[in-house]
């Protein structure tokens, strides 16, 4: 347990400064598009 303590403190510090967002599944389908999507298949 003693070994885990510094890591926990570090994680709390990180969360205080960095609030990551959570990706989610796409709700809107990609369009057929022009140049770039031609090669995206």
């Amino acid at each position, binding site marked *: 347990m003693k070994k885990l303590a510094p890591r926990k403190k*570090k994680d709390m*510090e*990180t969360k*205080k*400064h*960095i*609030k*990551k*967002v*959570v*990706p*989610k*599944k*796409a*709700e*809107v389908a*990609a*369009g*057929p*598009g*022009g*140049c*770039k*999507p*031609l*090669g*995206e*298949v």
Partner: protein
Amino acid sequence: MQLRRHKDIVAFRSENSTPIAFHARNLEVAAVSDELWNSMAPTSFDNGFVMNMLPTEAGVDAEAYGALEQWHTEESATAKVHNFPQTIRSLTLNITQLCNLHCTYCAAGGDGTYGDPVARVSVEKTLPQVEFFLKKLTPGETFSITFLGGEPLLYPQAIAAIAEHANAAASARGVQTNYTIITNATLIDDKKLDLLKPFKPNFVISIDGPPETHDLARPQKNGKGSGELALKGFSYLEARKEEFGKVTLHAVFSKSNLEVLKAYSFFLTLKADFFEFTFDITESDTSVNEEFMREMSMVAEFAYASGGEAALRKINLFNGYFNALDGQTKTENHCGSGKSLLSIDSRNKIFACPLDVSTKSMQVGDGLELNAQKLEELESPFIKKNNCDNCWARFLCGGGCLFAHKTMTGNKHKKHFSYCERTRFLIGLTLGFYEKTRA
């Protein structure tokens, strides 16, 4: 928008707002503290170099700096490199190398001919080529054909014949097909739509905005504007939209027309599924580049304010980055040119990129013969070949468009700073909206 960087982490800050950071390797987006922002090195969108503050520098917060360092060294378990399959599953076909318009920014030799005018592709020679590539796919896969020109609707019979043949060959192998026609819309009428309807093609319509701005860069060969003709043609498609696939409106902006927001507002009055706004790749004037970026910001703000994420994602550029972030897919290639995509010109010669059709040195095949050595050269990732290792945008940009680089610098692997600046800015813009929608 201000920009700061700490190694592989970049952060953006608009006036009076929370800084948003992006981890380049992990494709992670986060809101970050003021202390963390102050512990990062100021940079700019035209700067792709790695930068960082030192922990002993004035203004650096030790705790925030530690958090930055920890995040920088983390390796994501979810972000994966998306490799294009080394199987051709997408072809572009030049149905003609002639065009009825003469657009100022035309990348096809300036007049749709690529320097080699051809009125009609040989359907007889094209069918075996389509079958050649289609046969390499396995059941369940999808084969895509995009019909280009010149103006492909100068010869719609060829589109119908090729699609009919491809459908038969695909069906026999259990392969799906989809078709896209890239057109200036001036020649669309009910007769052509009747001919094309069985294949339910997607349409990409080249239109730069309402006629008064469209006409600035898209004249007919007689010098008159093509806007009214394009809208008339498009009205036939609008009336029968449910009979066809997705419709994308594609505008190109250049020195003569930078009114992206005006185009977007106009597009909203038309029946379309997606919008695409691109920049004239021959334009090197930095003030034009800056104006385009400003206009794109206004479009994004307007779209988000009026329809949230769904409206924003009707614009292909933003949708693509959202997909990459949500899917945690890192791209090492701007496109699948030479990997999953090949282009066939109106003389049945094969090229890696549809824009390189006129360049003999870029030819990778002819008829049913492919140059294996040339294709092998195209296998390595663009971001390596283009020296993008230090750029924070590399895994969303994929090294950029090689044709655009070549046009601007004379070397397809040498990037022009304004291309990179524009790309980084648009990615930064997207990341801000992504954080808003996912927080």
